[in-house]
């Protein structure tokens, strides 16, 4: 009977462990304020305007708050959006198309930043131009933004997706595989872009700086949230605008906030931030355009829709790519 007693004790202990959680979270949202927006990011500091808006109180003074969680993959973000666990995600514009194709009903409400050198293609020195990639082994992560960038470059050069040998791996690993000399080229991101020269015959073939407007980080929100809280969305984009404008005036303090949040040494955070251009409300307005005269954002989405479908990343182009853009966010 001893054993029985012991298993009882174990069972009770496990119940006790379930009952008490070490980090106490506030269970109920405050009644006086609007419920915090739950936003999931993958680990990328292009999304930092929201962090700054939260830290500097630009959200709080509008009666808003944001809870940031981390979901690294598109599949996981889609799952959480579909379940309604989160209100929105930090995405790239091309990932918004992937999400929509997976059945997520959402819209882009703000463009955080435009990649300005933080993403790119590394290649051996023998590869002079994009057309030389034909038949070469290119490391990239299928379905992710680097893949989209490569597809768009190939299209510019008159090549098809099948003209390169894709070696599929995670985007950061693509960078390390290139530096280690395992592949001819790689679509990757910072900090690997700056490490191209660590391979003796390595160089940067092309970066997002040469082709602006293609790799952009956006705030992609569930349509249900947008429809339920249109005023809060307008306030949210206003707070993001204020955060970006503030950052331009207070870069030193801003970089410290960014480094702290992403747990990075300050100099590394600065070097990485240099590869993106945060966008304020005015720049967003130009990028969005209007529903009658769409801007660059709609064009990028259309090209992602076309290229993803051709490359087989999505089964068929989504029916109305224009509906992925929310024009009521006050940024136009």
């Amino acid at each position, binding site marked *: 009977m001893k054993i029985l007693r*012991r298993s009882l004790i174990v069972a009770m202990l*496990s119940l006790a462990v379930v009952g008490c959680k*070490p980090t106490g979270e506030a269970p109920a949202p405050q009644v006086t304020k609007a419920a915090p927006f739950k936003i999931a990011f993958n680990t990328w500091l292009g999304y930092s305007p929201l962090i700054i808006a939260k830290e500097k109180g630009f959200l709080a003074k509008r009666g808003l708050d944001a809870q940031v969680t981390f*979901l690294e993959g598109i599949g996981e973000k889609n799952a959480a959006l579909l*379940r309604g666990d989160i209100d929105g995600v930090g995405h790239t514009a091309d990932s918004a198309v992937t999400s929509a194709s997976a059945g997520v009903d959402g819209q882009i409400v703000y463009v955080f930043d435009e990649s300005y050198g933080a993403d790119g293609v590394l290649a051996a020195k023998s590869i002079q131009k994009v057309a030389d990639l034909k038949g070469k082994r290119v490391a990239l992560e299928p379905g992710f933004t680097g893949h989209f960038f490569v597809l768009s470059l190939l299209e510019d050069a008159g090549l098809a997706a099948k003209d390169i040998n894709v070696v599929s791996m995670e985007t950061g690993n693509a960078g390390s595989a290139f530096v280690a000399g395992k592949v001819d080229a790689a679509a990757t991101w910072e900090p690997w872009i700056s490490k191209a020269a660590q391979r003796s015959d390595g160089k940067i073939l092309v970066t997002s700086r040469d082709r602006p407007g293609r790799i952009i980080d956006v705030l992609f929100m569930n349509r249900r949230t947008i429809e339920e809280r249109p005023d809060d969305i307008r306030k949210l984009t206003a707070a993001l605008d204020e955060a970006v404008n503030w950052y331009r005036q207070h870069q030193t303090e801003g970089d410290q906030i960014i480094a702290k949040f992403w*747990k990075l040494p300050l100099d*590394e955070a600065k070097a990485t931030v240099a590869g993106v251009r945060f966008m304020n409300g005015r720049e967003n307005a130009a990028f969005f355009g209007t529903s009658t005269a769409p801007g660059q954002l709609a064009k990028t989405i259309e090209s992602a829709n076309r290229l993803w479908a051709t490359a087989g990343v999505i089964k068929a182009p989504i029916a109305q790519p224009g509906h992925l853009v929310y024009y009521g966010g006050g940024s136009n």
Partner: protein
Amino acid sequence: MKQLVAVASFGLALLAWQLASSVTPNAAVFLPSPLAVLHALQDLFIEQGFLTDILDSIYRVSVGFLLAIAVGYPIGLLIGTSARWAAWLEPLNEFARYLPVAALIPLVIVWFGIDDLQKIVIIFIGTVFQFVPMVSSSVRRVPVNLLELGTLMGFRGCSRVIRVAIPSTAPEIYDHARICLGWAWSYVIVAELVAANTGVGHVIIQAQRFIQTADVMAGIVTIGIIGLLFDAAMRLPKAMLFPWSRER
């Protein structure tokens, strides 16, 4: 003597690591030295609240593991002692045992959300189906003479299981549980790598995104150390819990 050998084995491993690091070009990215990793570990604790992450991971592992044991043990016992239950449950369990846990993560997010519950479920399904056959095979291997002795003493059916099968297999199953705890740790990291705000796995993935290799290795080493400590914590009371068990 045993401890001395253990220390020596760790010493040799560290030496090999140090040597490999010193001949690796650009070691900070590819293979930071043990000292660099120690330094990173210190920074993690002092500046970035690593202790909270560790406690969160420990919490998730403990709950998921205990649930798996609490559910897996009776099922394994049923399979091991009753042919009819074995026919019902064993094929199903064998099927589930081969499900790729990492590939289930998006599904588990759809079903259970993105909070602790989701990680606990991942740990649970990663360990419970492995634990069940370990229990059932132990129970099946109860020596026939012990069972006969039990029958002679008047135990039949349920009481024979309780008085003979359970106590005679308890020390071995306790060891199985200890092995499962190792799996529970690898699955919490898998779960945290994909979706988490805290936890050792989350620290590792964030550091990896920005090529803070020393931080990545510090996280991995931490898991190893926690594993050693948990293992020791489970080994120590064993003789006290099961005085009838004999170990070499």
